[in-house]
């Protein structure tokens, strides 16, 4: 158990260090996410009330698309110089590798969200910078990343990998998007935790299922 976490943290730390070196992905993904919001402004110029209604949707479109951009790159460092094989030859379980990659991408998504949520709140004058919404967003990001990582590991070994990830990933995370958007809207409309309890439970169920099962089958993705 100790080696599991040690290896997972080492991988996450290494991924963050790699990203800090180049800063390529984080800067372009952030720019892309903000651009999505700008495009939304031009696509739906509307009054404040309508904006409040569609704001959570805008957020999750921005998260999904920028998430795909970054998830698509998640396994590129392991592909270069065939590092995945080097990782596999280490005395750690494949579960630890999956966990480490998830942690790295989770932190990455948190940074994106930490920028996009306040920017959205500011640009559209809607109160999405709200503790309940942030809590739901964090919870939804867990399932979002854990599905994304296994498909990212899979797509990096196929032709046309840039295409493979979104077509697998988007339909599967439909429940996450529905629940995160609906519960955020309910909160913006003045709802309490009781109103969003059902959505909350589905997100938790999704997180549990789509973390445990990929954790179990990740070895079949990376090991021939």
């Amino acid at each position, binding site marked *: 158990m100790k*080696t599991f976490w*040690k*290896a997972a943290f*080492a*991988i996450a*730390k*290494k991924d963050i*260090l*790699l990203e800090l*070196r*180049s800063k390529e992905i984080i800067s372009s993904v952030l720019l892309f996410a903000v651009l999505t919001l700008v495009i939304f402004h031009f696509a739906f110029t509307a009054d404040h009330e309508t904006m409040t209604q569609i704001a959570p949707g805008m957020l999750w479109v921005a998260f999904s698309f920028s998430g795909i951009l970054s998830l698509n790159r998640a396994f590129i*460092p392991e592909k*270069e*110089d*065939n*590092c995945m*094989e*080097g*990782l*596999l*030859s*280490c*005395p*750690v*379980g494949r579960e630890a590798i999956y966990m480490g990659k998830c942690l790295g991408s989770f932190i990455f998504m948190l940074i994106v969200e930490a920028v996009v949520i306040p920017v959205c709140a500011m640009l559209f004058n809607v109160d999405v910078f709200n503790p309940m919404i942030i809590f739901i967003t964090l919870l939804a990001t867990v399932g979002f990343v854990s599905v994304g990582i296994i498909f990212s590991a899979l797509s990096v070994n196929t032709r046309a990998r840039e295409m493979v990830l979104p077509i697998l990933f988007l339909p599967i995370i439909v429940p996450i998007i529905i629940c995160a958007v609906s519960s955020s809207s309910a909160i913006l409309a003045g709802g309490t935790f009781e109103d969003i309890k059902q959505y909350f439970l589905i997100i938790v169920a999704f997180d549990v299922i789509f973390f445990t099962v990929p954790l179990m089958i990740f070895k079949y993705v990376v*090991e*021939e």
Partner: protein
Amino acid sequence: MSHVIECQKISKRFGGNQVLKDLDLTVDAGESVAILGPNGTGKSTLIRILASVMRQSEGKVLINGSEMKDEAFALRSQIGLLSHTGYLYTSLSAEENLKFYAEMYSLKDPEKRIAELLEKVGLRTRRFDRVATFSRGMSQRLGLARALLHSPKILLLDEPETGLDQEGLDLLWSIIKTDDPDRTVVFTSHNFKSTVQACSRLIILKKGKIVYDAPKGDLTEDGLQALYHDVTGGKS
């Protein structure tokens, strides 16, 4: 006393493509085994199965008497692997790469071992430089340092000469021999000269089967070349 490596009837298929067929192989402590053979004959596959980064379709692999399938976790820490690539992150420095792998191997005193290895492979002065700026020979040497980091009892090398000149390759082998002369080494190669220098036993694979297996004896480079062409039917 059990063998260091023991393969029992190993087969590997990719879809319908049979790469290895019922391969039996035992390697004893301190041996340096060269595996030669034409391309696509299963050399790399065999190395990968021994390193447990690939699973055999059938058969058993035992390392020091324990079955790989059951104890892959513990057994992997006794094995070092170097392939045509060094498994290095090119945006990280030499030292950062080694530090990362030291954490993956849960090394006790990583600083000391890393410093020692960097010295051995002649990269001490370049330790803060990114691997991307390294020459082919330097990154292959760093890859070797990575493979030797946890002082494995068994070293597996898959065509380590790729992209190296004879001088670079000789340097690589001298490092391997000085780090621990008693280490068990299994390597694949296309280079007759360094094979003759490095191995104590010679295996030739053809179409997934062992067609020649004998101690090197006093074989010379020319002798090996003649033998190889004789056994494989002229193709290299």
